[in-house]
């Protein structure tokens, strides 16, 4: 007992020293600031930014924040298609926002044919930096002979598997002023990102017969379900809907559904229901406002994510984040390469800019994130929109409008 009395003050001093470390202090402050944030429904922009906030800094793995000389270091992978031109827009915008971000650019070969060496370098960079902003890694031509390239892994999926990015989070929220058929949509799509149909385990059984394996594991289902409910708590959402096809795929989707139900029991404050995927798609076109957080396996998440993105305005305004336990990769919500739009000043940069705002939030730069989001929304509200949103501006014009706003409204 006497030894304990001696040691106790040491332990107290140690803990006090720990709490003064910058990362711990930052984490404490960001959580406390979130809990006191108020929502004002009058101002539309405020409403958009504060109500049911996007998952932010709390998701970050503490140990992987790369910050040198006060600047966060973020891997940037332009990829192919419209990726390079949109990444240039992002750099310009973040410069105007005076965000403390340095980009480590990782180029891939022309036409996005990623060599193993390039893939290794990309993975290493993201593991080192912990955060990345990414375009589409490879874009397969329309007339590709898919069977002949069957053995090779799909590069984007391979990257997600190597980095352990088990969750894909996509925020689909109605933007005021955009010509959409539905209003007041605010859906958070949480999708399992690594297993299920995307395992690429296929073979020719005999000539003319192909078997494709969909593998579902309890561990991954539990991981994504826990993640979904934790995210629901952090973003103050009330309801989680699991989407499945367990009436037909009784074992695989049945396992997913059982695990989701089990995990739901540990969170009695959050309402939980489940829906079959085809009924879900029908409900999305008639009454999308009924959905809050949606929890899905890989393929259905792809489908429903795209539907939800289409309902709020399309590929140009959706942002997504791939989340792992040690790193996060941000990208356009809808993974299109946009080959047809390349180099023609047609691409809509808003999706990638909103993704970069999510990235800033994840890095803990909430104020910068907010300013970038406000700039994008101001441009959209002001009518400066690209063709896919019913406007007539080009990429450069939209970028100029956003940069101008940021320069005029510097913090």
């Amino acid at each position, binding site marked *: 007992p006497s030894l304990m009395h001696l040691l106790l003050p040491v332990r107290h001093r140690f803990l006090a020293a720990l709490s003064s470390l910058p990362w711990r202090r930052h984490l404490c402050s960001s959580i406390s600031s979130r809990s006191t944030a108020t929502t004002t429904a009058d101002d539309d922009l405020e409403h958009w930014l504060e109500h049911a906030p996007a998952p932010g800094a709390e998701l970050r793995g503490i140990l992987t924040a790369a910050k040198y000389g006060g600047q966060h270091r973020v891997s940037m992978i332009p990829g192919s298609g419209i990726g390079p031109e949109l990444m240039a827009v992002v750099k310009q915008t973040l410069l105007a926002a005076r965000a403390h971000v340095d980009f480590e650019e990782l180029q891939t070969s022309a036409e996005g044919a990623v060599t193993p060496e390039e893939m290794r370098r990309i993975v290493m960079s993201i593991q080192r930096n912990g955060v990345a902003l990414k375009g589409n890694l490879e874009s397969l031509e329309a007339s590709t002979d898919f*069977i002949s390239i069957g053995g090779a892994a*799909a590069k984007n999926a391979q990257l997600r598997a190597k980095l352990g990015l088990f969750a894909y989070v996509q925020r689909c929220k109605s933007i005021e002023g955009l010509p959409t058929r539905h209003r007041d949509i605010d859906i958070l799509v949480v999708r399992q990102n690594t297993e299920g149909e995307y395992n690429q385990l296929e073979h*020719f059984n005999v000539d003319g*017969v*192909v078997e494709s394996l*969909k593998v*579902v594991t309890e561990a991954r289902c539990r991981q994504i379900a826990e993640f979904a409910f934790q995210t629901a708590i952090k973003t103050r959402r009330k309801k989680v809907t699991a989407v499945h096809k367990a009436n037909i795929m009784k074992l695989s989707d049945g396992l997913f559904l059982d695990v989701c139900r089990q995990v739901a029991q540990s969170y009695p404050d959050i309402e939980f229901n489940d829906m079959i995927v085809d009924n879900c798609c029908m409900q999305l076109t008639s009454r999308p406002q009924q959905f809050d957080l949606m929890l899905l396996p890989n393929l259905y998440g792809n489908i429903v994510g795209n539907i939800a993105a*289409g309902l709020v305005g399309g590929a140009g305004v959706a942002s997504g984040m791939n989340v792992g336990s040690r790193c996060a990769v941000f990208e356009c919500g809808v993974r299109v390469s946009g080959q047809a739009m390349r180099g023609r000043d047609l691409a809509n940069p808003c999706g990638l800019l909103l993704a970069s705002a999510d990235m800033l939030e994840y890095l803990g730069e909430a104020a910068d994130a907010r300013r970038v989001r406000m700039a994008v929304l101001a441009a959209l509200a002001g009518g400066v929109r690209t063709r896919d949103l019913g406007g007539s501006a080009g990429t450069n014009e939209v970028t100029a409008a956003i940069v101008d706003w940021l320069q005029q409204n510097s913090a």
Partner: protein
Amino acid sequence: QPSYKMPSHQLLLQLMKRPSQLLQASRGLSAAAAGGTRTVTLIPGDGIGPEISNSVKKIFAAAKVPIAWDEVDVTPVKGPDGQFRIPQKAIDSVNKHGIGLKGPLATPVGKGHRSLNLALRKEFNLYANVRPCRSLEGYPTPYKNVDLVTIRENTEGEYSGIEHIIVDGVVQSIKLITETASRRVAKFAFEFALREGRRKVTAVHKANIMRLSDGLFLKCCREEAHKHPGVEFAEAYLDTVCLNMVQDPTQFDVLVMPNLYGDILSDLCAGLVGGLGVTPSGNIGESGAIFESVHGTAPDIAGKDLANPTALLLSGVMMLRHMQLGEFADRIEKACLDSIGDGRARTKDLGGGATCSQFTDTICSRVA
């Protein structure tokens, strides 16, 4: 060579057995129908099934369609080996007539029953599910001027039902794609497009991820496209189609795809035009075709004269077109759509106040 004259129904069976001549056979049959009455199997189904089947019979009679109905019940019965099966009478009926119209079937609860829809599909080898989605004038939804058809491979793919538990906590589900089935549905899609005067067939796939399976499906579609140069062909990724479908569905014409994608997309498109209550559906097979309504049995309104027969009626219209009785099909369809357009005549689920019988009578008076 047999020296007796073959009875006409056996002649029909012989004709039906040659799938490549199915189109010619139906043309031959319509020549027979010009003189006489064609018999069609009717499966009323459960719940609201009997009422809406009666509505359809009444409307067809009012339009003087040369069709006789052979009503059968497909509730499974226990066979001599203890297995539940569709009654032989029903199987014989559909085999004999080659065409069926089916109402909603209740999903059997309990052991020993397979899904009836699945059993019917396997029995008659119904390989293509055709669902036209057209905006109803008079029942507006946020989506205007939709006019597309989804053609879905109906026998294999993700719904093969082959699943295993590898070890505790790891499950594997097998998606099976064969060249035969893919080629068959692709061929049907192009022939359908040519017959119905459609411009373009789009193959929907995810071959960037599922390279061998969807790649094989796509290869068959491309080959059939070469053989049918009169129809434009395009390919699109499933996620892109979903994204574009909810923004601008008018850009799509005929869509052909494997089983799972077809299931989801056809329900998505049905939602665009008003839901399953107004969507017709046809299952085409090598030895027959069954047209059906795809909504549920609605046990809560069964027997109360509240049901909406539109889905079954429009499926009947699809059936008439398949049987080359297009003139009758057009008349009945017009009567039905006009009645829906007249706000007072609609049933409750479409926002009107009419009962099922009133709605039926309105259509009968329009079509006579």
